[in-house]
């Protein structure tokens, strides 16, 4: 961890803010149209524009936005005049809940599956596990989501169809997200473990007379998981970034859904706020992963001078 790294982080965020600001203004459509409807008179429109500051040149709007950001102010929603920060804070628990449960499901599927497949390399078990994971990767969420709703909500009636009411409502969206992530992660774990099982130190462990179980758990897995930690970090980042499609399918009131709604209303400050938050979450989680990585890999933790 050093200053250059922090500086890079800041630059990344500034880049995101700038890119999003200009992109969203280039998209056709106008928040005033959305707010006033077709029937509004030109003078009404002009008045509203002026009140929202949308009549200023784009670069002035951009500088104003940066200025408020510098004061940790994300702006106010054009739609309902509420501070963007409040809107995000309101939706955050839903997103965190979904991301957390989805990550747990991912890990619960991927670890046993990947480890099992690697330990039984070259057997039909390995091939079966990998076929299963290939299926998981190939099935898109917009298909798996409705399928789960059909089976578990409509036919079996176990879980609600959509929304966030009651403890059971998180299961289906989390399962949808978890399946595809678990499919990717289990392949990662398997290939990482296979690499490690071919290492010289695994041979050394066998030469000591250790049994296969101990070789796997004590010698191979801790090494195999080092690169996997990075991938888990990336995945958690993408979960926090709001699973836009999944949240939409299940009407899950998280950041993803908020973003989509805001884009539809051309609610510029909310879109910008959401995307800034998403980038921040992503970058933050990856930073944490890196720090964690330094903790768990003794080669970095106790690095000697080279």
């Amino acid at each position, binding site marked *: 961890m050093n200053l250059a790294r922090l500086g890079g982080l800041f630059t990344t965020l500034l880049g995101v803010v700038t890119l999003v600001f200009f992109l969203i203004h280039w998209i056709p459509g106008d928040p005033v149209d959305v707010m006033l409807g077709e029937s509004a008179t030109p003078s009404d429109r002009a008045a509203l524009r002026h009140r929202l500051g949308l009549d200023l040149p784009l670069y002035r709007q951009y500088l104003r936005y940066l200025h408020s950001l510098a004061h940790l102010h994300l702006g106010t929603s054009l739609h309902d005049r509420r501070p963007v920060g409040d809107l995000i804070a309101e939706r955050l628990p839903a997103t965190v809940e979904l991301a957390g449960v989805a990550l747990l499901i991912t890990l619960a599927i991927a670890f046993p599956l990947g480890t099992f497949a690697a330990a039984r390399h070259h057997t039909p078990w390995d091939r079966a596990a990998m076929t299963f994971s290939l299926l998981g990767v190939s099935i898109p969420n917009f298909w798996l989501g409705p399928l789960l709703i059909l089976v578990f909500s409509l036919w079996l009636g176990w879980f609600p169809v959509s929304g966030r009411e009651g403890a059971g409502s998180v299961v289906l969206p989390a399962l949808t997200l978890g399946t595809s992530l678990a499919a990717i992660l289990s392949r990662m774990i398997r290939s990482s473990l296979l690499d490690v099982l071919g290492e010289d130190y695994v041979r050394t462990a066998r030469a000591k*007379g250790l049994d296969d179980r101990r070789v796997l758990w004590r010698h191979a897995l801790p090494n195999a998981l080092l690169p996997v930690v990075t991938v888990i970090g990336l995945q958690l980042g993408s979960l926090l970034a709001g699973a836009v499609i999944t949240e939409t399918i299940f009407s899950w009131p998280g950041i993803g859904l908020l973003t989509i709604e805001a884009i539809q209303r051309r609610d510029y400050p909310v879109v910008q706020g959401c995307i800034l938050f998403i980038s921040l979450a992503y970058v933050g989680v990856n930073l944490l992963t890196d720090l964690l990585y330094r903790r768990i890999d003794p080669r970095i933790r106790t690095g000697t001078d080279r």
Partner: protein
Amino acid sequence: MNEPLLEVQDLQVRIGRGPRAVRAVDGVSFVLHRGETFALLGESGCGKSMTALSIMRLLPRPAGRIVGGSVRLDGQDLLDLPERDMRQVRGGRIAMIFQEPMTSLNPVLTVGQQIAEVLALHKGLRGRAAESRVRELLDAVGIPDSARRMKEYPHQLSGGMKQRVMIAMALAGEPELLIADEPTTALDVTIQAQVLELLQSLQARYHMALLLITHDLGVVAGMADRLAVMYAGQLVEQATRADFFREPLHPYGRKLFEALPEMDKRGRPLTVIPGTVPPLDRPFTGCPFAPRCDYRMARCEAEPPPLHRIDGREVRCHLYGGEVHVPPAPERTAPDRPRARRRSDARSPETPLLEVRGLKVHFPIRRGLLRRTVGHVHAVDGVDLRIGQGQTLALVGESGCGKTTAGKAILQLLRPTAGSVRFDGTELTRLRGEALRRRRREFQIIFQDPYSSMNPRMMIRDIVEEGMRAQGIGRTARERHARARDLLLRVGLREEHLDRYPHEFSGGQRQRICIARALAVEPRLIVCDEPTSALDVSVQAQILNLLSELQRDFGLAYLFITHNLSVVGYLADRVAVMYLGRLVEEGPVAGVLEAPLHPYTEALISAVPRIDPEQRREIIRLEGDLPSPTRPPSGCHFHPRCPKAQPICARSYPEQRELRPGHWVKCHVAG
């Protein structure tokens, strides 16, 4: 003789399945007694490691299988044991150490944990008792400060230390048999000497049997009581050390001796073993060595030779089948072409091709929040060199001494921190961009590892022609093709090889391609960075022959970077010895190798294993490892390890002194 400890009978190992399974071990039999050292000697791929792994029943799964024979330990056939019982043998009665200490220890467990694991498993020791035993073991293998070291991770130890830890781990189970698979191949000579000596003393102390797997005749000569030579999965000869080194019986063993580069063989091409090891995926109808053998008879192709017993030795060769016991003089396939003897004593001419002065390469060490430079690694710290047209200068030193960095800095592949590099009168350090690129045509490099120094997705044709295109050699594609073909023929390959990819070639062939690639732009100087250290002895001989032929034909100058002193003696005109970023001695090859001035050079030369077991000479043992080039010791960098160090050595760095004509040293005590 007492009952044998280990008895291997007709061992058969296959890799892969079906009719094309590789016969990695094909009927190997030998016995090993308590307290005895038995060496399996052979080149890569001969099956020696597979034999060792079979004894441990640790063949790579699922491809490797033992399909026949027996491995008896004290009469008990290990191949019949259930896996559960076999685990008691592994690490308990038989322990093994491997070639690569760098990768053979688990990076996320401490050294102490890894040793304690064996103690818990085989000795039932835990907690305090285990901890004190770990310390005893680390002390026994000569690791100082064991209490601290046991809490460290493998990456915090040097290569030699890691191999000591491996040995401590092997000793933890108090084995009756220790299998050492190329235990010192990855180590520097001075460290190799330490580790071999350690193995010998431990063996005597614990009365272990030692099965030593090696390709190095010198190591065998210093260590083995008896030995077997392995070729193509079979033992072709078995003898006591004395008998074998007096006169090897099998033609293959003889060839191995002749292929060794040595000072006495200077000016003559080395004997090579023509051809390559035959494919092992089918049974042999005759002797597997027959196609490469100088003594080949009709019978050799027709029937596999039986094992003949002569005066307590065993040899698998038809030469010894009849009355004839002494083989007739061989018809030389490659007669000793008298080569124009290079003027090895010729001092560098007035205008050297390459002149390096005060070359320094310092790498900054950055640390902390601001990445401040907190120090420098003095990788190369003031090196002066001269190489004349058509001459070979060997740059010798142990790993980490900065020799490769110096080579790269000379070629401007790394920009030097300071100093001057004049090539044929041009100051290279001032050249930039296009001017430097143009000039690169005249100095090329050949790397150590021919496996990773070629782009696997390029065909040989493109690899060889790429430099020609970049330097505008050959006006048309046709001309370049013709030139690539000629070059390939020149380095001993064939025209059809042009359209193949690197993975289709053996290590020796790849190194030939790398040489052709370097030659393609008509260089005048080639930096050869350990060009043969990844190769077997017989292949090394081919490459060395090729390099000296090319030097004669094209008047090339070589900067030969190596740690292998026998290669130096064979090939170089002058030798420069490097220690911790600086040259400590330079002179003509005979002077440096036969009467070294610097104590470091002396130790280095004495540590090289001799192949003449009778002529054992005292090894000058260097204590400890190479110090860190970040904080070199005060005064003479070598003084903490120097057996001749005086008080002055700790105070000031010695001046360069020319003690003999053209032979100088930086040492307070030399001369």
